[in-house]
């Protein structure tokens, strides 16, 4: 069963050090103007977060010819095979912080490159923060079952092909459930969205 969840933006922390890092700055910088840039963008964008996610669980089956069946697709990705080596099950996740964030990024992209770079960083920090929150919730549930959650693994990592996005979007019905769609070139819109495979293994 596909589950859909939302969160209030206040539940999702945005760390200004993370934002500075995504701005390609030293997170320890003491340059006041950089801090002001980051903090102003966080203040503007934070209330606009619309955190939504949908996910479904699949058993993982090893295929006799190598590779694995993930329930929604079969993959021969070596990096993913290695990553999921001990996993018996997985969560297929799609998460987004919504289209209002893209509007701000687009606005600054047209008005001010320094703000655009910053807004982009705030968006990344937000969607990562949202995914971290989701994974913490998954981990708490799995912990009770004596299971352990592996780190997120997204299409495009290593040799896990981006083309698998099409299968993910078909299975999770992302457009209808959380308003995320795929362009012809496999970009996600809204852009601050994540899809990932999260392995589950016995402790």
């Amino acid at each position, binding site marked *: 069963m596909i589950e859909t969840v*939302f969160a209030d933006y206040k539940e999702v922390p945005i760390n200004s050090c993370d934002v500075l890092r995504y701005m*390609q700055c030293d997170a320890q910088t003491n340059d006041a*103007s950089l801090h002001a*840039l980051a903090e102003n963008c966080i203040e503007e964008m934070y209330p606009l977060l619309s955190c939504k996610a949908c996910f479904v669980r699949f058993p993982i089956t090893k295929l006799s010819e190598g590779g694995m069946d993930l329930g929604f697709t079969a993959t021969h990705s070596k990096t993913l095979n290695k990553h999921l080596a001990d996993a018996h099950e997985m969560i297929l996740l799609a998460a987004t912080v919504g289209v209002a964030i893209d509007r701000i990024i*687009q606005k600054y992209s047209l008005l001010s490159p*320094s703000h655009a770079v910053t807004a*982009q960083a705030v968006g990344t920090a937000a969607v990562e923060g949202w995914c971290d929150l989701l994974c913490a919730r998954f981990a708490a549930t799995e912990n009770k079952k004596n299971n352990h959650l592996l780190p997120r693994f997204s299409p495009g990592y290593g040799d896990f092909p981006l083309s698998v996005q099409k299968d993910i979007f078909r299975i999770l019905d992302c457009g209808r459930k959380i*308003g995320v769609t795929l362009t*012809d*070139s496999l970009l996600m819109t809204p852009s601050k969205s994540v899809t990932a495979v999260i392995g589950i293994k016995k402790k």
Partner: protein
Amino acid sequence: MQLLEKLHKGRLFFDGGYGTSLQARGLAPGELPELWNITHPDEITKLHLAYLEAGSDIITTNTFGANLLKFNGKDGMPTLEAVVAAAVRCAKEAVNLCGKKDKFIALDIGPSGKLLKPLGDLAFLDAVALFTETIKLGAQYGVDLILIETMNDSYETKAAVLAAKENTDLPIFVTNAYDESGKLMTGATPEAMVALLEGLKVDALGINCSLGPESMLPVVETLVAKSSTPVIVNPNAGLPVMRDGRTVFEVMPEAFAKAMEKIACAGATILGGCCGTTPEHIRAMHNQVKNLPFNEITAKNLTVASSYTQALYLNEKPILIGERINPTGKPLFKAALREKNYDYVLQEAVAQQEAGAHMLDVNVGLPEIDECAVLPHCVSLMQAVTDLPLQIDTADPVAMEAALRIYNGKPFINSVNGKQEVMDSVFPLAAKYGGVVIALTLDESGIPETADGRMAIAEKIVETATSYGILPHNLIFDPLAMTISSDSSSALVTLECIRRLHAMGLKTSLGVSNVSFGLPSRETVNAAFFTMAMQSGLSAAIMNPHTKGMLDAYYSFCALSNLDPQCATYIVYATEQKDDKVPAQTKTEPASDEHTLRRAIIKGLKDEASLTAKKLLAVHNVMTVINDCIIPALNTIGTDFEQKKAFLPQLLMSAEAAKSAFDVIKAQLASSGNTRAKKYKIIVATVEGDIHDIGKNIVKTLLENYDYHVLDLGKDVPPEAVVETAKKESATLVGLSALMTTTVPSMAKTIELLKKEYPTCKVMVGGAVLTQEYADMAGADYYAKDAMEAVRYAESLND
């Protein structure tokens, strides 16, 4: 009885969910339900029939995802025609089997599965074309109405409605998916959607999917309060839950029926279900609701404009319409428009919103430009940076239609007047696309001198508009402010008209500042006249929101007229004014202006850079300021960045500060009739398929600071467009950006075409995933790993 007749005489019932019901009948997860029209027609017909027997008056064809993107007759997929024909056949078969009269078949149109440009990759006009294909087929195979549903974006909704309007005469019903915040995914409130959809004259509107019936109630109440059109409510049966290893929905038929009774009492007149609802849900609801009294829908007569997020109502409190985006009397803006540089439009859109405008006028009429292309382009650009509703201002009906077509919302239309020819060209556009029309009280014989004369024209306009189906609440009268310097009684005539129009319940608007033309201290007169006009009942002022006197008058008037509860807005305004008067504290040691400008640029202080540049230009010539201050500062920060002593955002803040200094220089040159010579032309673009443009915009800003004439083609640009412009403009260099590995092939294609058609042009490339290796593979002349490298390469071509 005809559907539209029934719609206004009583309650109607839709059917319930299909996808979920079909899954219960064996549809696999991820399998396309529309294929079942062909492979399992009996199951589809049975489900339709079950709904008809449960009390549904309208059944929807199983075509939610039926569009050319999915069903193209290739890759084992059937053609769209096969899917739609089979779907309509199943529905007709069910109606025949049911044997009852007055059952209707709705062609179901769901979202395209794509986000529209500029945030996504589907162009608005392509979306219209996509929906057109499905709708034409539905009409051809004999459906009774078009149901556009589950739309979570206002723009896509408009595209589908236009496709329906332009290709059928069938009734159009529209339901949107509002999320837990009570808005569409792309931000529109229910009020904004009512404005848009009533402007487009749909026959019924409402909400579906999204939430369970209980949680929908607040949105339903808003829709009913604002809409003069019947309201549809088709909720989910709550959220899916696992029970005994099966997916079921949490709201069972009885609870659903009780909740729908509340929704019916709230005033929704067309009821049904969405995901998780079954014929049992519809039967229970039908039994619960069918005997409730039916109240006729009342006309609300609201004067409202909207953007893609918000509705703006004209009530007692006047609104401010920013007039700054208009080339009249602005030589710099004129020059920029000719050069296709829209920075002024973007900056003014944001600046006027920040200054307190509620709506923005957009006028780009210049004899030398192609207004039919530029006006819609500027409208789109403005909608990318502001969520204020727009007033589209042009005398060219073709440009007006192009802009109205792509505007995301319901705009003001500026303008019509009493001339028959003008009314006959503008009113049909307003009737088709929706919009509130500004009506000037002048006609073939000019502007009448008396209030009676102007009122007579107003009455003629009301009459003609009504004959086009445009009711008086969609008109705003401008009785024309004329200067008192040539006729000292002219302001009184205008005010008299405002009073009389207001007394008739009509809305009014004025270009206030015309009143003082030819007088000294115009702002003093304008502000006084503005107050008098508001006191006479003025609904909207077209004005410059950067003028303090006008804002003082506006906020004081609202506070004094009990239009500003607790004077809250006035207090905020007055406090900000006070803050502005505090002189800026200079933290640094007194320094020469040359030093201050260099430092301001290096530190990225925009305001200080432009102020100091102004001071310097009073004593030095332009070249000294550029060569001794701006360029050395840019070089310092550029080198710091290359040596990793400064970070990217610092480089960019400096570039923006330099740009603000250059803007001062440009203004000075323009006032003396000069321009700054540019080095050569560079085209920049993000390649086709890629919708990221920050990197490209960074490069553009830096190159402009180094005096290049940069032509920005935007994002998702086809190879042909790059090559054509490069040739036409005799560009020396083309800069291409790509962010994703999936779009690198499109970059290679662009370079290949460019090398074939225009081999003398150099190409540099950059972007997140690019490497020297990719750049070589794509055939680029140069790979710039960051924006400074792009500048250095451009500079190297000067030698």
